[in-house]
């Protein structure tokens, strides 16, 4: 029965999508609150460079080595960005825009020159192919398990463990960096750990949803949850729920319309954001309009 489940394409596609959404939302919540959302964009692009370099050196297409190499590239991106910004010749947002296209371009060039046989091409780099995740399996505990499911499960568990263990440290670093530093709770270390894990998750999610769609799962569900609640813990939970719901709604819609599955899942996050924007009781357009009416009619 277990093998039937693991061999079922639809179940594996939905499971992979739900894992990408969960792991992304856990980290994305803190990135959005720290106003660092666009760093996830930078990271998910520049890891292409890491993936190609690791492949050239070891010919590993997935697995721990590939993940470690790409995670380092992600942290390198952030480090270089901070370094360029610290010269104060370039503003920080521009520094992000300088660093990641350079690494991304280098990655694509290397890909074209030396790695034509590798599984990624410019299409999968951007969008991935979640529809085929069930084909690429590995043996695990006597079962043939899709690689994407294995690595995304690991990423999700690691992210969950990180957020649960360092919840108060992450919260304080996001709310009041100076107090976190003054109390010795190492907000800079938290920041790099957060971005390191974002890189790891981006690599694990790469085959499934690609670089661009991954960003949607990191940023949009937390931004949606932000409109719905005033509690950080609830924001985390809602972000995960919105992400998972997007994958569950996106799949049947994509099959029906015969379009990209990952793309439809990501589009659904946008639909949920729009709904929250319009209908959220306190922060939505409708709620705002109603509150004003209540205020001025009495």
């Amino acid at each position, binding site marked *: 029965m277990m093998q039937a489940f693991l061999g079922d394409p639809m179940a594996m596609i939905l499971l992979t999508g739900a894992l990408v959404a969960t792991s992304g939302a856990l980290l994305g919540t803190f990135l959005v*609150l720290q106003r660092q959302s666009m760093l996830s964009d930078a990271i998910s692009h520049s890891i292409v460079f890491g993936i190609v370099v690791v492949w050239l050196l070891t010919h590993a297409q997935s697995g721990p080595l590939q993940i470690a190499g790409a995670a380092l590239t992600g942290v390198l991106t952030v480090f270089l960005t901070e370094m360029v910004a610290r010269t104060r010749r370039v503003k920080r947002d521009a520094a992000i825009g300088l660093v990641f296209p350079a690494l991304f371009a280098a990655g694509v060039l290397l890909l074209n020159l030396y790695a034509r046989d590798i599984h990624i091409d410019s299409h999968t780099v951007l969008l991935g192919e979640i529809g085929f995740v069930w084909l690429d399996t590995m043996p695990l505990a006597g079962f043939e398990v899709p690689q994407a499911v294995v690595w995304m499960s690991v990423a999700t568990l690691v992210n969950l463990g990180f957020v649960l263990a360092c919840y*108060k440290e992450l919260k304080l670093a996001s*709310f009041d960096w*100076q*107090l976190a530093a*003054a109390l*010795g709770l190492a907000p800079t270390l938290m920041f790099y750990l957060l971005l390191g894990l974002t890189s790891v998750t981006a690599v694990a999610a790469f085959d499934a949803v690609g670089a661009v769609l991954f960003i949607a799962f990191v940023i949009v569900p937390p931004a949606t949850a932000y409109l719905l*609640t*005033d509690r950080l813990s609830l*924001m985390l939970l809602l972000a995960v729920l919105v992400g998972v719901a997007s994958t569950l709604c996106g799949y049947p819609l994509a099959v029906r319309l015969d379009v990209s599955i990952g793309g439809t899942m990501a589009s659904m996050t946008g639909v949920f954001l729009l709904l929250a924007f319009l209908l959220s009781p306190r922060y939505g357009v409708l709620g705002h309009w109603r509150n004003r009416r209540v205020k001025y009619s009495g």
Partner: protein
Amino acid sequence: MKREKRHEPDLALHIEDLTVAYEGKPVLWDIDVNIPPGVMAAVIGPNGAGKSTLIKTVLGLVKPTAGHICIHGYPPRQALKRVAYVPQRSAVDWDFPTTVVDVVMMGRYGHLGWFRWPGKRERRRAMDALSAVGMEAFANRQINQLSGGQQQRVFLARAMVQDADVLFLDEPMAGVDATTEKAVVALLQELRDQGKTIIVVHHDLQTVRDYFDWLVILNVRVVAQGPIPEVYTGENLRKAYGGRIALLDPDSSGETPDAVPREVVN
């Protein structure tokens, strides 16, 4: 037992030969500051005098170029739990999804240590502190519903639960209503009477004499420091603020004038 080596243990804050520079430009130049325990001290000076930088350096948020700092005789890294800090209100995002009592509990995070979650004890401490600042009714409010004065009271409550010996406050009276200002000053004076040392970056020269008993006048260098009656003189203020000060009482050749710095008036 490890033998403790403390430098100037009888001073709440001891700063020696401190220089801080941003991009090679000195913000603080070779300053010495000594503040005894149990006083309420104001740090005043014109814009760009390095007041906030001074506090941030003491807290380890800014790296000094030279010099050393001791808090009750300990280097700042060993004195993290002896020091509380109230940043300027604008330093944090008041739209952050959290409640008033949650923010106050953050003051206990340092004592809790890594990985441990705050619990009932921390909540009780936070509620006590909120009562002390008259904000217990707001405990479960979202923080974006607070006025400026209420935000300041919450920050003060957060500093109180840190159980620190030395409190640093960066312009706590900026942009708050008169009632809050009086309440904040009364609370700080009460803490001082309990033996704590209060160090406040202050911008309103007119209230310095009423609120404080110790004064540090700063303008990149230390212009003067000591008990208010000795230090709050027209001569010292003119030295620090230069032409930017309008002395309301120009005849009395300097003793305790009512001074209004023009940058505050604007």
